[in-house]
């Protein structure tokens, strides 16, 4: 009995550490916590669902930006709109670093700096991919912890 509950505690601690590090390293902000507070027993995976939806939907938003960057000359108003959509979505899942890069992109966009936009967009895509990997690992682990919990809990 005490073995399984101490195993549970360890897993929980590991999960908490994973989460803390995501915050400490600046990948996530307060909005992620807000989303977690919307979870309950009937909706235990809400955050994962939102994040999955984000990654699914943002493929299209990223394509829009890429296509707009390939135009010659660049339509900066259109580009700004596309980035606004992508940034908004990213903010809604609490993607802090990603948001910073998007803000930098917007600055270049507003001054009509195409090269600056292109350079920054490489950073945006990098952060986007990094966060995706980290969150996938986090949710995968969270689900494992959830399974152990269920197995350990007396009915």
């Amino acid at each position, binding site marked *: 009995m005490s073995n399984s509950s101490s195993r549970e505690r360890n897993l929980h601690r590991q999960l908490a550490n994973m*989460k*803390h590090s995501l*915050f*400490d390293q600046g990948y996530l*902000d*307060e*909005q992620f*916590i*807000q*989303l977690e*507070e*919307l979870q309950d027993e009937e*909706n235990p995976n*809400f955050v994962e*669902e*939102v994040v999955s*939806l*984000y990654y699914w*939907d943002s493929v299209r938003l990223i394509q829009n930006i890429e296509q707009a960057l390939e135009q010659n000359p660049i339509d900066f108003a259109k580009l700004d*709109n596309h980035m*606004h*959509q992508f*940034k*908004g*979505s990213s*903010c*809604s*899942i609490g993607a*802090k670093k990603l948001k910073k890069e998007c803000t930098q992109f917007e600055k270049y966009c507003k001054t009509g700096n195409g090269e600056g936009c292109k350079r920054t967009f490489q950073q945006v895509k990098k952060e986007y991919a990094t966060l995706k990997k980290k969150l996938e690992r986090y949710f995968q682990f969270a689900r494992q912890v959830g399974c152990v919990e269920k197995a350990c809990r007396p009915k």
Partner: protein
Amino acid sequence: MGSECSSVVAEELHVLAVDDCLVDRKVIERLLKISSCKVTAVESGTRALQYLGLDGEKSSVGFDGLKVNLIMTDYSMPGMTGYELLKKIKSSSNLREIPVVIMSSEKVLARIDRCLEEGAEEFLVKPVKLSDVKRLRDIILRGDENDEKKGSRKRKLQDLSPTSSLARDLTPLKPASAASKQSRLKRPRLKNTD
């Protein structure tokens, strides 16, 4: 069980949420459901007007008969903006009494002023939080109770009740309101998670 139009206390609030962002629609839906509201989420101002029966077409299906108690709309949307949607609603004799709340990730004061002047109930900075929704719900329920006492929209701007602190914050500078304006419009800070 009262089934009068204005008796929402016994019934659930029905909120029409308008946002072109799929992720935001999912989140606002959850926020509203947790706050015991019925939700209809649509992706554009055009769809919202269709749902409300205002699109000018005599569609045979039309408005599904579910009274809408509150409209929450994003400001920046392709096609019809939230501001344009607000104006259309406020110029409709059928719909002008429905409170409209604008949501925006950009806290531009001129934008906020414009929306409030056009009759928006509130202007929320995105991402919208649970506390925002809960506060809105209280405002709407209280508003329904005070139906007879409702005056012009402009008067609401001068209302000094705690629930319309945003409106109060926009009146000429007082030290207290400047501080609360900041806390209202500021983005959520990262909580210390240690």
